[in-house]
């Protein structure tokens, strides 16, 4: 009897100890979440309806001021509308050119083309280098090296591609895609390798060629990643500054300004000049209102249209 009671007591103590351990370990993450996620986001909602007065205090004097300011700015200037178009263009190029190219390269390396091991390293390595470094190397390449080569080889005089109004957008969009191609390959290869070898062999024995294998076996296996990248990438349609802040700081030519760039500039200005903080909050709210439904719709659509595995 005595040992039974002792056993129950020990068990109770352990359970109690477990609970203390559990809540003790979670205390910090919970507090962190409540303050820096929940409070911050709720406050940003409140901030959107406020403005800052001369004494640097937030007031509800004209609750819709920030929203009206945004829509007025949007209507007054065609730069913002065009900027959204550029953001969509950037996303579209990524979707219809970038993604198929990444999948093609990944499939080739998964099928162990000659040199596939070296290619993996060489394609992945650039992704660990900062965008600022790449922007500097790329800027000097397109603004110095290419015009020099054009002159030397073809005798043609040309401006730097980043300084030329006609070419700068193309150059920026190209930079966005070309330098990020290698990054996704590892994920795709790892997923493709998850397809059981027997399934591949069985398909081959049935006379299937590489193309059929790709569309009927490989594509369904990587579809979850493609789908994940696509719907989680939706916010970037609006927020991506397309690297312009790194290329030009606050002086990007109007011909190339994306909406995301404009947003980035406003955020940096708000960091220096606190008066714009409520304005940034309002833009963020509009942004979330546009992006969230779009994300969920895209996710839903992708889950319906995805390729299905054979067999």
């Amino acid at each position, binding site marked *: 009897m005595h040992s039974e009671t002792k056993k129950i007591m020990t068990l109770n103590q352990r359970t109690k100890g477990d609970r203390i351990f559990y809540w003790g370990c979670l205390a910090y993450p919970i507090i962190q979440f409540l303050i*820096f996620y929940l409070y911050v986001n709720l406050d940003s909602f409140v901030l959107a309806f406020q403005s800052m007065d001369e004494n640097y205090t937030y007031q509800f004097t004209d609750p819709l001021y920030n929203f009206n300011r945004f829509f007025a700015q949007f209507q007054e200037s065609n730069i913002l509308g065009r900027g959204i178009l550029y953001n969509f263009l950037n996303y579209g190029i990524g979707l219809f050119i970038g993604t198929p190219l990444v999948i093609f390269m990944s499939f080739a390396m998964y099928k162990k083309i000659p040199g596939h091991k070296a290619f993996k390293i060489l394609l992945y390595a650039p992704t660990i280098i900062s965008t600022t470094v790449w922007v500097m190397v790329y800027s000097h390449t397109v603004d110095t090296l290419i015009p020099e080569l054009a002159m030397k080889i073809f005798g043609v005089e040309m401006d730097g591609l980043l300084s030329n109004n006609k070419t700068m957008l193309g150059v920026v969009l190209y930079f966005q895609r070309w330098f990020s191609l290698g990054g996704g390959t590892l994920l795709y290869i790892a997923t493709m390798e998850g397809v059981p070898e027997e399934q591949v062999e069985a398909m081959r024995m049935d006379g299937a060629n590489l193309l059929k294998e790709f569309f009927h076996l490989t594509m369904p296996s990587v579809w979850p990643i493609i789908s994940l990248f696509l719907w989680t990438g939706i916010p970037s349609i609006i927020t991506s500054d397309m690297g312009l802040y790194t290329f030009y700081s606050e002086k990007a030519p109007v011909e190339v300004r994306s909406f995301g760039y404009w947003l980035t500039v406003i955020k940096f200005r708000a960091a220096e000049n606190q008066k714009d903080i409520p304005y940034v909050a309002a833009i963020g709210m509009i942004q979330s209102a546009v992006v969230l439904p779009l994300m969920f719709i895209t996710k839903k659509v992708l889950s319906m249209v995805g390729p299905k595995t054979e067999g």
Partner: protein
Amino acid sequence: MKKIKEKNKNSVFFNVLAVSFIVLQILVVYLPCIWGVLQTFKSRTNWILDKIGIPTDPTLNAYDLFFRYFYVNVVRNGKPVKVYFEGAVLNTLLYAGGSSFLGFFVQYITAYVLFRFKHYKSSPIFYAIIVIAINLPLAGGVAASLKLYRAIGFYDNMIGMWILNAHPLNFYFLVLYSSFYVVPNDLYEAAEVDGAGRFHIMFKIALPIVMPVVFLYFLTTFIAEWNNYQTCLMFMPSYPTVGYALYKFKFMSSPPDVNHTTVKLAAAYMCALPVIILFIIFGNKMMKGVSVSGGIKG
């Protein structure tokens, strides 16, 4: 069997097409880098005369100018301060190191506790909240964060930034959580029977098993923070990190000798060098880790 192997071989056309395309991609990325490196060894005159070729009289002048003029002017505690490359490296080590370590610490503990006690009612709820928060982009956060950080003294404060980055709302939380599936339950029970305490089990038994994921987390977070300039520029303006300093240097008006392609490129390469060294040492492990943690089985 031989027939199947023959069948499994790629067609020559596919191999040629794929290799050509990938080689082209690699050349487009690497050739400008090689060209850039060569330019950094040219004198200003050599570069003006020939912007394409190899240096005729190699010199380290660009690197010398880089070390002398690569700085950021900041105001710290009301006083103007010049932060040079060494200072920026120190700031980056503190910022990236502290953020990676504390970030890992919080994510590990949260993932471990939620996994180990997943039979508690609150555990799946917390897990779901984290997953939703990771996937839900609430874009207005920057403004309110700026306001809050200023109010509580975290703005322009290194320790404040560490605390801000120490949260479990990160993709690696999910990777860490999943990695606990490989730790057999018997191991915990055996340790408990042997009298091991809860912290001992968490850090001495479970941690070594998920170490590859932890290592990958450290390395990728460290590199990401090393390269990150926008967060520091926005929230920590008087503690320029390497990425931040490079960004400022790119747009800084310097004497003509410094405001020059060879020096700007030397700065870019010097700032990338530590990351390249890390990749040379740990690249293989890192790539394996990315593959393992990222692969979604079909």
